[in-house]
């Protein structure tokens, strides 16, 4: 297995693990953790391609995705806390109303 392929397979494994977490967690915060893992796998892919193609664009893009992920987590958790205030639960299966 060549160097780049090893990194890509590693990223694919982390992505699959994160997907498993998103699909199986009941808690909304747990689902967010799975999304974090999947985004991390994407970052590994970007940096690996940047390194093995000698192109800095992938690294700059990783910087952008990291920043956007942080913003996404802040808003996502704020929504979770707001939902919790109204519904008294963060269990994803029980959050099925558009109306508070």
């Amino acid at each position, binding site marked *: 297995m060549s160097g780049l392929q090893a990194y890509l397979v590693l990223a694919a494994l982390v992505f699959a693990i994160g997907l498993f977490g998103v699909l199986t967690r009941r808690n909304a915060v747990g689902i967010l953790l799975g999304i974090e*893992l999947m985004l991390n796998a994407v970052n590994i892919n970007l*940096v690996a391609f940047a390194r093995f193609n000698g192109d800095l664009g992938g690294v700059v893009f990783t910087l952008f995705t990291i920043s956007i992920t942080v913003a996404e987590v*802040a808003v996502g*958790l704020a929504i*979770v806390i707001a939902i919790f205030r109204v519904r008294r639960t963060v269990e994803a299966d029980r959050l099925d109303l558009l109306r508070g």
Partner: protein
Amino acid sequence: MTLETVGFWVVAALLLVSSLAVVLTPNLFHAVLYLAAALVATGAVFLLLEQPFLFAVQLLLYAGGVVTIVVFAIMLTERLVGERVGQASRHPLNGAIVAAAVFAGIVGFLIQAPIRATAPAPVVDTTASIGRALVGPFAVTLELLGVLLVAALLGALYFARSEE
């Protein structure tokens, strides 16, 4: 086996074990701590790929920022509720099948794809090159990112504000 190969397998094992722990541990608080370990391991992968600046960003923003926010969110939503949310996985078999199918699909594509095996010589000072790229070809994107961060900040403040 070179030192870099050994380092890769050690970091890969750490990353995979902590990632599995994130999705499998029943205690959500422990899951966040394992997520911090997985994020640091990802930063180590960036180090292996000779990007020390990304490693620093990863530690500061992810392992520092994201983990702190998530810990706060868990404490806010668990302490008030009295009864703890059931953390047991739902349909773990279905999730495992879907995740394994996605992984098999990606690897099946990787096997067929023509991939260059050897890395070119590394750039000597990547941090300086990143800085030049950020204010050069990616300047507009950088400004848009600033706007997005302000919007996210305002949105988070709006959602999390107190009622009175």
